[in-house]
């Protein structure tokens, strides 16, 4: 399977003997063994890398036309929209691309949660993924500030102010983020510099994520390891073909927003230039931050000696940081929810909880929405801190198939359920 290829072309052979990039590509993207039973949810990692490239290419093109100055930023974006050749196209791709990136990555993560992809030996792969999420959020937040609309400005004000809740160093951090004593030109300049820098850091971490994946190999819907060649197919042509189908559907979805609903996921207030003297009626972040925003605002009371604001900040960051230790919080030895009769439902409850938090994040923090947000926040942490550790101990998993090939080919006794499942995956 992993035999070193014999390169016929003398130039290729000469390069490869000195720097084995051809052997590397052959090994990692041609012969590389993939579980044969992957469903289409395994497309989303490839889709995320496609969006990352699209974002970097369109972003560089926008940076060539954009002016990071408080007096010119808003109008320079409108100049891109109106007078730069195809500027509207590039900017709408970039703007909607941010949403697409989060849609794809959220699905990728929930797939990992359902099939237990974060468990040994893939803990580090998962943790690198959480780093990617954090970098994406920082990049998206700073990118949203650049057009210098009302939501840009007030979103920046609200989010940077959060850091002031940190004891002792909070005020210092806020001043550092602002580059002064308010969100102003210095803030816009440093956010632009960082918004240009972080995607390249992201590329580096994505590289580590992929290398780590190629060590552990992909998890699969059955959550059992590949035991031999009968369980796998080579990456090319099987997964180049399958990922291409996913890419086709994804590009249709993406293009629909870019061409027919480009501002649907945005906020009208960001087409009003930033004004420090007029606060929008409600300051709402972009949709992908809403669940976290709901968690932040759900703490309206002091917890012991911790003030409410600081507690909100701790929980908001904690809601992501807790993912780092998920591989150890989940005590179940069976990976896939397919063979975990209770976790199967717990997963959906958690997903619904996240959606509810997203809804709450878009509402004013008062009345019923606030209470629902508090319950949702409570359950979010209970899921990780109580349900996951306890469930692994008390749940009796279903018997696992002997190998991946068995349910796929339907061979062997007692695999009829597995075979039916495989048929479902196919249709």
């Amino acid at each position, binding site marked *: 399977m992993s035999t070193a290829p014999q390169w016929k072309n003398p130039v290729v052979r000469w390069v490869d003997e000195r720097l084995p990039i051809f052997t590397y590509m052959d090994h990692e993207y041609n012969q590389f063994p993939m579980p044969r039973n992957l*469903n289409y949810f395994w497309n989303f990692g490839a889709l995320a890398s496609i969006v990352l490239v699209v974002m970097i290419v369109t972003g560089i093109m926008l940076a060539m036309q954009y002016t990071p100055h408080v007096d010119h930023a808003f109008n320079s974006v409108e100049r891109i929209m*109106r007078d730069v050749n195809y500027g509207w196209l590039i900017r709408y791709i970039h703007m909607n691309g941010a949403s697409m990136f989060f849609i794809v990555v959220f699905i990728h993560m929930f797939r990992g949660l359902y099939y237990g992809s974060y468990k040994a030996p893939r803990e580090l792969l998962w943790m690198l993924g959480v780093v990617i999420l954090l970098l994406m959020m920082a990049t998206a937040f700073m990118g949203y500030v650049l057009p210098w609309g009302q939501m840009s400005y007030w979103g920046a004000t609200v989010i940077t102010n959060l850091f002031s809740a940190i004891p002792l160093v909070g005020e210092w951090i806020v001043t550092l983020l602002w580059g002064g004593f308010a969100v102003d030109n210095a803030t816009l300049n440093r956010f632009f510099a960082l918004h240009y820098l972080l995607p390249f850091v992201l590329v580096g971490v994505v590289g580590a994520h992929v290398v780590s994946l190629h060590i552990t190999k992909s998890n699969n819907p059955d959550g059992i390891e590949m035991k031999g060649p009968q369980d796998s197919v080579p990456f090319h042509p099987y997964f180049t073909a399958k990922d291409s189908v996913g890419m086709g*559907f994804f590009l249709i979805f993406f*293009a629909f927003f870019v061409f027919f609903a480009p501002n649907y996921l945005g906020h*009208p207030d960001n087409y009003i230039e930033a004004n420090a003297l007029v606060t929008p009626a409600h300051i709402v972040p972009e949709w992908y931050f809403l669940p976290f925003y709901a968690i932040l605002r759900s703490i309206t009371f002091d917890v012991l000696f911790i003030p409410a604001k600081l507690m909100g900040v701790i929980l908001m960051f904690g809601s992501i940081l807790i993912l780092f230790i998920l591989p150890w919080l989940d005590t179940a030895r069976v990976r896939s929810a397919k063979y975990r009769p209770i976790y199967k439902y717990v997963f959906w409850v958690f997903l619904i909880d996240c959606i509810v938090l997203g809804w709450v994040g878009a509402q004013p923090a008062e009345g019923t929405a606030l209470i629902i947000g508090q319950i949702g926040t409570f359950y979010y942490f209970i899921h990780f801190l109580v349900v996951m550790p306890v469930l692994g101990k008390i749940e009796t998993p279903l018997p696992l198939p002997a190998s991946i090939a068995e349910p796929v080919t339907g061979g062997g006794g007692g695999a009829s359920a597995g075979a039916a499942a495989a048929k479902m995956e196919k249709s």
Partner: protein
Amino acid sequence: MRKAMMSAAAAVLMALSGSALAAGGVEVPEREWSFEGVFGTYDRASMQRGLQIYKESCSGCHSLNLIYFRNLTDLGYTEAQAKAFAAEYEVQDGPNDEGEMYTRAAIPSDRFVKPFPNDNAARAGNNGALPPDLSLMVEARPGGANYLYALLTGYADAPAGTDMMEGMNYNNYFPGHQIAMAPPLSEDGIEYEDGTKATVAQQAEDIVTFLAWASEPNMEARKKMGIKVMIFLIVLTGILIAVKKRVWADVH
């Protein structure tokens, strides 16, 4: 399982994006617009009437800073007509060779001329209220064109017991119902060059169509390209599905 996860993904998207939109105030009635939908285009005659309303009614207070006179060719005017329209305005230019600023007739590469030199002058001339720039008005308000139409046709007598502030007007659709702008449109308040009867509803439709174009002058190019891109992607995806089936035929 797969279907359930797909529909959950769709539900997340719709729930989240829908709620982001629902940040407006009063529910505004939906109308049909020439520029709606996948094949929508701006109604040229309506835009031209809208320009006339902007010129005669709005431009006394509201600027349109992002629009250049050259953009008027989008409305169906010729370059000569756009040039003639521009020439009616005076703009400051300079300094000339003697270092003096001077005024000259506007040319197509000039922006629409502002009614006030700065925001303070605008407030001073409008009882303290600042008339907003109209360049992005349709995109910058929740509800967009429907909201603006509702606002322009939504002036009414204040219900008994409403405590109106000095100089404010009651409007059914403005958030808070008290708007500084006096009713800008009146029955036959304008004599259309093309002879269309100038009802308030007609005027509101025309000015909103004009402002929708001002907000997004490249919308028609966007939708036209979008249809081509969609056809291409659907065909491409069909081919990719066929390739995938062929490649996987020996595995399943």
